[in-house]
């Protein structure tokens, strides 16, 4: 069933997980202590498994790595009423669940973007690529974890986030796709300096380009893996965009698992246009764009922090 209130749907996933776990424990106990019942279990097992298969869709939610976000340090904690699933999504090159993006504001006035796989309006991680024991389930990503991202940035002078990010060599599972510090390990990029960890197959590596261009942006052009240019319209008042591409074969000097953010985008995004007629070209990463493009229309410089 679809609950229109997203938090109720997330809570349902939690109860579904707990209820099913508990049911399977009861079956195990019964089997151990009542051998005769086991015969019946064998007969009915197929039906029970089929029933469970229909329900086992959600897995355990993603949890924080080392420490939970703290109100006192770093980005602070996510202010619950600010969490917003953005109306932007992108298909995965291999199909399956699309990718989505969420915006949160923290108690320290920072904006955080999270990217992950999208299932029925929820952001999460798929149990594959060595994440969650490859259980194939959808693991919801609690919004509170957004504050663990190293790339939360200060809001502009109007309390708005204008920001562009690149996340390279992200596993298709979506685990830690936007740099969140979460528990558990997925696979590592094929040329990572971590030989003892499981390496991702290249076919499961993704490069993600995402961000918020602000309310004045009217179009964004990017270059696909095969070199063709695509122009898209940024979504909603935040000017959101999300591009997912297969990662290319690693080359010497290639940076693994890189995450970088800035006020203006960089390739494969080649051009952004604005309502006032401004065209900003970002095709050449070695050439600094004009100041009007470095500080895009709609961006208001924030007042400096007090002493």
């Amino acid at each position, binding site marked *: 069933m679809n609950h229109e209130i*997203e938090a109720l749907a997330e*809570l*349902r996933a939690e*109860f579904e997980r707990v209820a099913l776990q508990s049911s399977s424990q009861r079956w195990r106990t019964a089997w151990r202590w009542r051998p005769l019942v086991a015969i019946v279990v064998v007969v009915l097992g197929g039906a029970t498994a089929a029933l469970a298969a229909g*329900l086992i869709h959600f897995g355990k939610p993603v949890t924080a790595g080392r420490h939970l976000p703290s109100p006192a340090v770093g980005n602070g904690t996510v202010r*619950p009423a600010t969490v917003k699933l953005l109306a932007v999504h992108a298909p995965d090159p291999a199909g399956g669940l699309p990718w989505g993006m969420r915006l949160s504001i923290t*108690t320290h006035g920072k904006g955080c973007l999270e990217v992950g796989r999208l299932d029925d309006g929820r952001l999460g991680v798929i149990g594959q690529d060595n994440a969650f024991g490859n259980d194939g389930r959808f693991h919801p990503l609690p*919004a509170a974890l957004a504050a663990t991202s190293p790339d939360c940035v200060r809001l502009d002078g109007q309390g708005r986030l204008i920001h562009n990010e690149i996340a390279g060599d992200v596993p298709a599972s979506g685990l830690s796709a936007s740099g969140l510090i979460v528990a558990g390990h997925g696979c590592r990029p094929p040329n990572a300096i971590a030989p003892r960890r499981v390496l991702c197959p290249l076919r499961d590596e993704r490069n993600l380009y995402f961000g918020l261009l602000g309310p004045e942006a009217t179009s964004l052009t990017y270059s696909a893996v095969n070199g063709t240019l695509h122009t898209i319209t940024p979504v909603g008042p935040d000017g959101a965009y999300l591009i997912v591409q297969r990662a290319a074969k690693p080359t010497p000097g290639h940076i693994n698992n890189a995450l970088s953010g800035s006020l203006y985008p960089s390739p494969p995004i080649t051009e952004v246009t604005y309502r006032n007629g401004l065209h900003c070209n970002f095709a050449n990463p070695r050439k600094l764009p004009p100041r009007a493009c470095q500080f895009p229309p709609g961006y208001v410089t924030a007042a400096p922090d007090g002493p």
Partner: protein
Amino acid sequence: MAAAEEFIELYDREAESILVFFARRTFDAELALDLTAETFAQAWRSWGRVRSGGREETRGWLFTIARRQLSRYRRRGRVERRALQRLGIQTPLVGEDDVGRIDAAAELEPLREALGDELALLGADQREALQLRVVDELPYVVVAEQLGISEATARARVSRGLRALARALDPIATEGGRR
């Protein structure tokens, strides 16, 4: 039907009613979700004993747990989370869109207006705290800052204020409510 499947069916049928029940009595979407989560966690722990009851009977039982939760919250000024913790359940955060949806489902706007009239009858401390939290919808941390008190004290004042208004509000809260 398996106990797990029956329980999820109960959740699908009643979760929004329980959430609305709490929202109309606390004027706080986040708090309402916390109380809803603990109510269902407690319900799951006793589910084996109750699941054979009829639909109305089960609904009545669930609302009894909910009323008990609300009464504990009003007494202590904090939400009990014991059953949630035992089950290892994380309560999700309530996003901006959800706050609007919960407000609409619980029809909180007319209730907020009614509350404004009743506020005049309270003591200054509780009136200010309720005004900031419920009428102006400010987060507790801002309420505390504006009143120069700790967040815990702000929560306690709002909780006591709502309790004091409960008699006046309950008929209004129930009217149009689902339960």
